[in-house]
Structures are given as C-alpha cells and as structure tokens.
C-alpha cells in the first residue's frame, strides 16, 4: 500500500471538514469505549492479565528465533509448508507462486492487516487473479476501491446509506426495487453474493492473530465466520502472518485471547476462534488439501533490536485508536498507511521510515489514554515522543517547528533570562488580551484560533506563583505531606 503519511496534516485537515466522515465518526467509537469498560468490569482479573500478557510477549520476543523455529517444525510435522519472507515483495511472490501451482483463478480472503501492509490484492490482480475480500466490510471497501480505516472496524467512516448506494451500483443483476434500507438486508445481500465465492474459490487466504509454537497452529478470531468458510472450502489455505505473532503455547494464546476481544469490542470472546493446523487429515471429509504459512519480517527484526521493541507486543485490538482523541477527530485514513491511531504512530515509522511516517508521532496530545487501555501495556506516548526526537534529529521536522523549538531550547539554557523574558511575555499577553482574557487570532497559530479562542495567560508565571506559595505556605513535613 502506497503510504501518504507524510501528508498527515493535509489529510487531517481534509478529514475535519468532511461532513459525512464526521457524522460517521461521531457515532461509533464511544460505543466501543463503553463496551470495553463494561467487559473489563465483568472480569476482575483483567488488569492482572495485562501484566501477564506484557511479560509473556516480552518473553516471546526475547526468544523469538527459537519460538519461530519450534513453530516451523510443528507446521511441517502437521503437513504444512512455511515460507519465510523478508520483504513485502518476497511475501507477495511466495503467495503468487502457490496460487500458480494450484492453478488458481478465484481467491477468497479473510481480513488481514498484514495483507494490506504488503499490498497483496494489487499484486494478485496484476497477475490476473480474481481476489475477493470476504469480511463484510472489507468487501464493501473493496467495491468502493478504498482501504481500511480502523484495524477491527475498517469502515468506521461509512454510513449505512453509502453502503446501500454501493450495493445497488455493484450488484446490478439483482432487482432494482429490492428493499435495502435495513442493516440486515444489506448483510443478507452480501452473504448471498459471497457464498458463491466461498464455494468456488481455489485458494483461501487468512491472516493470523497468533501462531502457536507448541502445536504449529495459526489462530484467527472472527465474528462473521468468513475466515472459516475461506479456509475450509478452498483447496488451498494460505496464512499470512508477521514473525511477531508467535506465542509459545496454547495456554499463552488463551491468556491473550481473554484480553483481545474484551479490549477490541468489549466482547467476552468473539463468536469464532479458530485454530488451524496443517491441511486436512487423511480421513477428513472437508478442509483444505494444502496449508501454507508465509512468515513476514518486513522490518520487524530491526524493530526488535531497537529501542522500539515494545511496539512488537501489539495484538492489534484497536483499543488505542478507539480511545484516542486525535483518531476520533480525524479517522484512520489521515494516518496515510495501514496501521492508524497511536499504534500506527509508534509502529509505522519503524516499518516505512521516519521520512514517510515520522510526523504521525506529532498527532498526539500525549493524554496517555492509549497506554492506559493497551492490553499489552505498550508505552505508546513514550515511543511517540522518541519518534519526535528522531524526526527532529534527522531534520524531518518542518522549518518553523524547528526554529521555534531551537529558540526555546536556547533560551531555556539560561534560567535567569528565561524567567525575565517569560515574565515580560506573560504580562504583555495578558495586557494584549484585555478584558476578554483570550485571543481570537494569533500569527502562525490560525490552526488553533480559527476553530476556538486561545486563553491568555493570567499575568504571572508559574515560577512567580510558586515563589509566593513557598513564602506563605507552611513547610511540608512528613506528616502533612500526605494531606497536601
């Protein structure tokens, strides 16, 4: 997928003035936030599990090479094949080879963010293969020629009327006067259309939420059951997964599954959690005849050796974006690449470079909600702050921002001068703001003032207030410290 992350500011501005998008955004994420809170409340050990999950993921990353080898051995023992892919290109080529060997024409796909990351659909289509997304919303996005905006609710930006229009345009063989104004009618129509595809598909491609080293299994979680039809009815099942998806044992997967759905949609567990191990057995009457796993690196081994290793703990639940005020204002598309929201800001620069995606780290107020809800306790604000520093060090920060930061840094090195100047500025700003106590326009800050007033300083600096307080307040002793 061609990233447009470097245009985040432009993308965000467009998103903020897109009325339909704003209408769609205003409806959904609040529901997911409340549902997660309710699910957490129903499971008193939820936060302990997060500690366990964090430690488990750290342990796995510390031994990643060995768990990958153990996993591979088990896949082969179960009759499956493992293909290692260093880059997106390698992964696409491996999948194309498998499709060609199977003489495939029609390919069904379950939802997979990694397949978006490697731009798989375009590659398959360029090789004259018919590829159909089967997750309901991925299907809608495919007929709209769009990419996902959220990792678990990919069409969070669409309203129902748009879907109706798309279906009427796309499914012209169906009666024109059919009713389609209820969600159930839309779902039903997609169900019928996609049934045909499941049944006639030659190859089914799914992602993986986890890979289990103990058994060589790949796990997917779905509510629709599309991933199961995709892999059970096609002759060949291909799993595309990144190397960081491996967990040691089934029990470890269980611990993470307790966190995944609750964090994502507030469900106790999704309707379907499916463990796939190898192709159909000798006496099995159904299931795929061949099973392939593509293990993708695509920059992860470098992240593993960097100060950003913690980002690889991510289990892709989407809680950070549901809780992010910036994501909720601009939606996923503004982030310009596969993984949006705080996790995208922390991960994408590591995968596609600081020049392309470094500016995403600025799309945060550092309010900390993402870290507070992350089931893997990834310190997202810390990682974003570090990307900001790197962006600055590499000179990718825009000139005006650099100039302002440099000036401030120079001044901050001289505390006496800093105090005098800040005192003068605070006083001047208070005077300039007048009775109103706020500014309606400030040079270079129209991005703020065009939407709302900027409150003016109240006249004294923090240092002044602190000094006064020290004079009047009683000294803090161990006994009254607590109360203070």
């Amino acid at each position, binding site marked *: 997928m061609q990233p447009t992350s470097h245009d985040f500011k432009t993308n965000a501005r467009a998103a903020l003035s897109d009325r339909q998008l704003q209408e769609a955004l205003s409806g959904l994420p609040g*529901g997911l936030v409340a549902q997660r809170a309710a699910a957490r409340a129903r499971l008193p050990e939820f936060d302990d599990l997060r500690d366990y999950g964090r430690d488990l993921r750290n342990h796995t990353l*510390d031994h990643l090479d060995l768990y990958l080898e153990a996993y591979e051995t088990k896949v082969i023992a179960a009759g499956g094949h493992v293909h290692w892919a260093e880059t997106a290109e390698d992964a696409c080529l491996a999948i194309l080879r498998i499709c060609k060997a199977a003489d495939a024409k029609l390919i069904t796909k379950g939802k997979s963010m990694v397949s978006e990351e490697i731009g798989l659909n375009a590659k398959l289509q360029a090789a004259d293969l018919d590829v159909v997304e089967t997750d309901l919303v991925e299907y809608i996005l495919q007929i709209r020629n769009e990419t996902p905006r959220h990792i678990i609710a990919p069409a969070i930006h669409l309203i129902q009327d748009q879907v109706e229009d798309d279906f009427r345009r796309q499914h012209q063989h169906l009666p024109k006067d059919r009713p389609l104004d209820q969600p159930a009618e839309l779902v039903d129509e997609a169900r019928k259309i996609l*049934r045909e595809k499941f049944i006639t598909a030659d190859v089914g491609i799914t992602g993986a939420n986890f890979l289990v080293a103990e*058994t060589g299994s790949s796990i997917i979680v779905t509510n629709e059951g599309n991933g199961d*039809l995709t892999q059970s009815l096609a002759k060949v099942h291909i799993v595309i997964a990144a190397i960081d998806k491996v967990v040691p044992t089934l029990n470890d997967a269980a611990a993470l599954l307790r966190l995944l759905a609750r964090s994502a949609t507030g469900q106790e567990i999704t*309707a379907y959690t499916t463990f796939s191990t190898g192709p159909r057995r000798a006496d099995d009457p*159904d299931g795929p005849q061949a099973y392939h796993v593509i293990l993708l690196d695509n920059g992860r081994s470098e992240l593993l*050796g960097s100060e950003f290793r913690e980002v690889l703990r991510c289990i892709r639940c989407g809680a950070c974006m549901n809780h992010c005020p910036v994501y909720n204002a601009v939606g996923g598309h503004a982030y310009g690449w596969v993984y949006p929201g705080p996790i995208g800001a922390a991960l994408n620069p590591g995968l596609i470079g600081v020049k392309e995606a470094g500016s995403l780290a600025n799309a945060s107020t550092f309010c900390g909600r993402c870290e507070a809800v992350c089931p893997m306790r990834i310190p997202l604000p810390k990682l974003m702050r570090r990307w900001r520093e790197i962006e600055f060090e590499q000179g990718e920060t825009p000139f005006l921002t650099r100039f302002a930061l440099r000036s401030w840094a120079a001044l901050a090195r001289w505390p006496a001068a800093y105090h005098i100047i800040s005192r003068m500025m605070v006083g001047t700003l208070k005077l300039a703001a007048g009775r109103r106590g706020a500014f309606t326009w400030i040079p270079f800050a129209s991005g703020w003032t065009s939407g709302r007033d900027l409150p003016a300083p109240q006249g004294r600096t923090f240092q002044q207030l602190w000094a006064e307080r020290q004079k009047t307040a009683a000294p803090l002793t161990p006994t009254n410290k607590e109360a203070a």
Partner: protein
Amino acid sequence: MSRASILGKVRTALHAPADDALRIGVVSERIAAPPIVAAPQRVAAPNTDLAAGFKEELELQLATVAEVTNALQIPKVIADYLSTNNQPLRLRHGIDPRISKLDFTAVADFEVQTGPASPDDSAGLSYAFVGIAETGTMALLSGPENPVTLGFLPDTHIIIVSRNRIVPTYEDAFALLRLERGVASMPRTLNLISGPSRTADIGGRIVIGAHGPRRLLTVITP
C-alpha cells in the same frame, strides 16, 4: 535464503547465538510444560456450577441453550427448535457415535443425512469435544465425526455438549486435548464457538447471521 537471513537478523537483534543452551532450555521447557494463568474468578471456586455458568454466558451471546435429562430427548428438542424457527425438519451430521445412536426416526418426517455440509443443507449437528464455562464456549474438533463445514455452511448449527464435559477454562480444554489425543493433539481445525455468526459493521448495530449460521442451539445432555 530468507529463512537464515531473518533468523540471523533476529539473533543479532537479541544478541543471541544460535546454540545458547540456556535459551534453548527455557523455550523447550515452556513448550513442554505450558504455564497456566490463574483461572478467572467466575469459574475458579471448586463448587462452581459450571453448566449454569456456561449456559448464562452462551445465552448472553445470543445462542439458545436447551437442557435434557436423557439423550433420548435430543431429537425431539432439535425438531421443536427447528419448527419454532420455521426451519425444515432436515439436518446433517458426521459419524460421531454419540450422534449416530440418536434415534431421529422417533420424530415423524425428520430427514437426516451424514457427511460434510453441502451448500443446500439447512442445519448441521455437531458434538462438542468440551464446553468451556468461562465464556460459554464450545470446542469442536474437525474430522469425519464432526466435519468442520457443518458449523459454517448451514443456516442453523446445533451443538450437543455433555454436561460432564463442561470445564472451567480454555486451559482445561487444552489439557484434555493433550491428555486424550497425545502428541498429535491438534486436529486440522479446532473451533471455539461462542454464539451464532454476527457483524456490527454496518451502522454499528449487531446483525446475526453474517456469513455463518443465523442461529445456534446448544443442547446440554447428561
């Protein structure tokens, strides 16, 4: 060679030589003796009524749960459920002996076939490996006994669970898998099913019957 290159990069990142006996030991020990996290409180107490908890959770996920006191009642319960939902008296199941011994001829005009699902099947019947109380989940193993397609192609899925096979947690289910099936413990597909197929993708409202079954009946039997 991509494999060597990726593993090499991972080892470099971890500052770990390939033949570090200590690391290898840690990994093989964990795989040989999978750690168990404390069971959720809702199923942890020794006197927990697992069947009741299982039923409650499963119903929250919009499945129908029926309990019978004798397996002989199962065909009738299924027939009633299909009729209530305006479904034809027709189903397909695999060769699980616990299902094969059920007498569907006891219900007039009940049409029963065996084998994997075909696209025209209206109902599929499976027998669960175990039920899992913590989230009202059923574990199904693929194979000729219970073909995997029975749970996804038909509009109605019916799953029978033995009451004495309802365990507290996922880990308990995995322990039974390892115990009863040995080294090659995993079937081609292990399905954890916790309700009928659904989506909330259009308009944010839950619609049941996205791609898989539109309804799920679970029958708990002694």
